[in-house]
């Protein structure tokens, strides 16, 4: 068992013929992900890499291939439409890699996917990987190893840094989930903590948060009540100035709210071990496992 994706994941790639979509589709196929279909309007009937059928719509792709998961690499201007389409087509999990979707678009997308009981991961995220089983998104497969650590993060490359620390010290991962750096996202820390708590393969959890919002604080409260497995947490942006958007649309300290100090205090209060720097992840986990 792993979280959200595994060997049964049957993936349709929206934007499979685009620059990013084609590159990462090949990477996912090489990793062993079952890429069963692609969608690019106007290119229905073609084959991607001579093997994967391309359809004009997600609905056609799902009915022809029984795809149960979608990953989105289309440009920001059409990405919210792509999420609506995937949710309507009946996939159970949508992973939106695209960065730059307007927040107001997401205020309309989120009720739509929630009502259909579809899980959305992202947008503006690196996706997920269950090492050795399946990869949906752009997390480099070669830095991950199968193992007992569940990892959830708002970041991309910082996730790679921490995964790299884990793998090189013999701590493999059950599933790594990049939930995305936007202010409005489909899957949050609490969703992942609950899934890791329920997953038999996961023995300990790493949470990588950053400045902005209150998602980490709420997750800390949830962890204290509901999560029995050890958790180690990190918050990026301790030196970030207030009022400035630090790259990620969601990484902004508004007034005095959403600071790293506030989030680290919430972690400590909930019994989550706080990393001062990424290299602390391994010793803190080993102490607790």
């Amino acid at each position, binding site marked *: 068992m792993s979280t959200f994706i595994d060997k049964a994941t049957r993936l349709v790639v929206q934007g499979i013929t685009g620059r990013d979509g084609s590159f990462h589709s090949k990477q996912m196929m090489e990793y062993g992900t079952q890429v069963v279909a692609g969608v690019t309007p106007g290119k229905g009937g073609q084959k991607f890499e001579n093997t994967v059928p391309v359809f004009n719509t997600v609905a056609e792709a799902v009915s022809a291939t029984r795809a149960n998961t979608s990953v989105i690499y289309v440009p920001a201007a059409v990405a919210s439409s792509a999420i609506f389409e995937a949710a309507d087509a009946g996939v159970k999990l949508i992973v939106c890699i695209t960065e730059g979707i307007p927040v107001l678009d997401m205020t309309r997308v989120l*009720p739509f996917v929630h009502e259909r009981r579809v899980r959305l991961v992202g947008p503006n995220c690196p996706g997920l990987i269950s090492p050795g089983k399946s990869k949906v998104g752009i997390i480099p497969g070669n830095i991950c190893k199968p193992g007992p650590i569940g990892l959830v993060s708002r970041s991309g*490359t910082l*996730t790679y840094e921490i995964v790299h620390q884990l793998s090189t010290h013999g701590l493999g991962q059950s599933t790594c989930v990049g939930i995305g750096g936007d202010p409005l996202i489909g899957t949050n820390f609490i969703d992942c903590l609950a899934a890791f708590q329920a997953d038999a393969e996961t023995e300990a959890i790493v949470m990588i948060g950053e400045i902005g919002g209150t998602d980490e604080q709420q997750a800390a409260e949830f962890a204290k009540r509901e999560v029995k497995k050890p958790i180690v947490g990190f918050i990026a942006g301790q030196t970030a100035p207030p009022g400035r958007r*630090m*790259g990620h649309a969601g990484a902004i300290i508004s007034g005095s709210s959403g600071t790293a100090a506030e989030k680290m205090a919430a972690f400590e209060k909930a019994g989550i071990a706080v990393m001062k720097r990424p*290299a602390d992840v391994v010793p803190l986990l080993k102490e607790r496992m």
Partner: protein
Amino acid sequence: MNLHEYQARDILRRYGIPVPPGEVATTPADARALAEKFGGKVVVKAQVHAGGRGKAGGVKLAKSAGEAEAAAKAILGMTIKGLTVHKVLVAPAAEIASESYVGIIVDRATQRPVLIVSAAGGIDIEEVAAKTPEKIHRQPIDPRYGLLAHQALALGFALYKDVKQARAAADIMQKLYTAVYAVGASLAEINPLVTTADGSVQALDAKISVDDNELERRPDIAALRDVSSEAPEEVGAREAGLTFIKLDGFVGCCVNGAGLAMATMDLVKYYGGEPANFLDIGGSSNPQKVVAALRIITGDPNVKAILFNIFGGITRGDDVANGIVQATREFPLKVPMVIRLTGTNEREGIEILKRAGFSALSDMDEAVKQAVAAAKGKAA
């Protein structure tokens, strides 16, 4: 992207919200002419993207056209929180009976737009929320139905007892909600919403922030960007497709990915340094971006050492290395540089650097330690 007050007032007018008169001047003489047009007694307000304009002396009351000219002369060219004032808003001084606050933000926790109103307007709403939360009224909005009439009217009554004024306020709230979705605002505030001596309800001052992700599809709004009101190096970075934020420290940072960039700044501080900037070269593989990044970092005289921290995923190590080599040919470095390069095409990247006489580390902590030491003029 933040809009100036006068731009925000124009948008509110466009969506039918009553806004008292007021026009922009860029010279003291223009300010004088506007004051004459408005009957002499005016307010002259700095148009700058910074809070606390009043406290900084950027808002002045003038009793005559001559005083308005003097006020504009004092305000134009002054700096408020590091930003130079290039424009002033000249508006007739209004007789104000009451001041309220009306704002719409997208609330991250409920994932919905939320209308926030308070009868305690005119001042910092965060302060009101912190000290007297009972004076703040909130209405989450379902974007499928918009702000419903009864919801708006209930908040109208939270501001005014008089039914006419409550209805006028509710009408303004609904129009503000329409404006938010029409211009792609992440925040729209009327502060203060005033009642005048004759009882009418008007938006005296407005603040609108537009979601940067909206600008591509809204060229008319993107055209409102005032480059003169932003730090020049940040404008250059944006044009090069980089995210750059200047800080006060002395270790220049160049990183791929926002989270890793923040974590790198934090680690610089952890090892006793101070970061000079946040800089994310993004996920793409483009040596030109690296050249642009190095140009911006080396333009800061406070930078005593440069730190590259690259964990290649989509970003390729060889592209970054090529960018570094190209940049240092174009403008030789005057400060030490420490490079950490790992991930995709790391071997190719290190080889390119070696041939150009640079070396690269694979460990983030080690690289940061060396960069901080180099910036302090010591060996690590």
